[in-house]
């Protein structure tokens, strides 16, 4: 196909006149299938990490490290889906930033709420008493005004 024909085709395929250029059609489906294999490999790696804390008894920093690894792999999958499958990587900078910049709120969102959850657990562990399991004193021997 000559350059002129290609341009004509691209122009005709544009959904509306305000589109300056189209990033598609791609010449073939090579990039799609490559992305599929990458996503599959990342998922298998995630599963391997997820199952490893079943196969081995992992605790503390190693478990935390493992979970961090799974989060990084998931974020990598998200980047491929958004950038290649949703074509955000092919859009102009204006468009990309409009979608991506608001997502920065998630950094604060996640840190603040998980911090709160941990604080909640610590407070509960410090101040909530376990329900009484041993014999309580008979009523007559309890001093009035005391609930224990």
């Amino acid at each position, binding site marked *: 196909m000559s350059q002129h024909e290609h341009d004509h085709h691209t122009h005709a*395929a544009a959904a*509306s006149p305000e589109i300056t250029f189209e990033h598609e059609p791609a010449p073939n489906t090579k990039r799609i299938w490559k992305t599929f294999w990458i996503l599959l490999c990342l998922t298998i790696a995630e599963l391997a990490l997820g199952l490893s804390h079943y196969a081995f008894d992992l605790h503390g920093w190693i478990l935390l490290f493992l979970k961090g690894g799974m989060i990084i792999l*998931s974020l990598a999958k998200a980047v491929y*889906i958004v950038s290649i499958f949703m074509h955000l990587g092919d*859009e102009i900078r204006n468009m990309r930033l409009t979608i991506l910049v608001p997502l920065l709120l998630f950094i604060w969102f996640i840190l603040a709420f998980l911090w709160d*959850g941990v604080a909640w657990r610590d407070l509960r562990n410090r101040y909530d008493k376990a329900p009484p399991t041993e014999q309580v004193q008979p009523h007559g021997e309890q001093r009035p005004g005391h609930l224990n």
Partner: protein
Amino acid sequence: MSTHVPAGYKWWTGGKSPYNVSYGKLMMWIFLLSDTFTFGALLISYGTIRVSQNYWPDPNHVFNAFPLMGHANLPLAFVSLMTFILIMSSVTMVLAVHEGHKRNRAGVEKWLLWTILGGSLFLSCQAWEWTHMITGSHSVLIDGKIQEIGATITQNPYGPVVPGMLDSHGHAVTMPGPVGFGGFFFGITGFHGFHVFSGVCLLVLAFFWTRGGRFDRLGHYEMIEKIGLYWHFVDLVWVFVFLCFYLI
């Protein structure tokens, strides 16, 4: 503001789009951005409750069943299949979009049908998983008595194991787990499943529109692209549901 604008003024045809996308596609992106925050809020509230508990069930012990495999212990096998189905349906969707750019009606129809099949399979898997969890019976020590319960939004059988206690079948007896587990699991996977269901409905609609020649008459297949964006988003959300409920 009392600026007077002529009736029917076309805001979006005054030259060129500063985003180089059509109005419809931009609005789909804005909707998906808002939906990202909805799912984000749900998953973060789940995380908050989870870290506030001293005990949370290990997904490898909760999600270990597979259809027709009886009581075989197959941790994460079924959810891996579900994840694979959803990734595969994302690929068939992007292939439909690709054929749409080439304005190949038969190709769009073919790949839409595969995507509809993938989405329906995923929903069937989820229906099985929910049924299995709700109707499953686990021996749990409640009020000093061993009771058989499944996982619902009000009860969670996946608590810590009671040391040295076995039920009449010789299985370990557990304490009730944190009650928030079921609410978050069924709430979030249910909300995601609702998105998949809506996506399948849109894909069926798109299939009949394609077959009826609607997009050939319009001269472009942009509707397939917009539905495709939604479909990929559903796959994207699953990446994080999979991470938060099944892996971590």
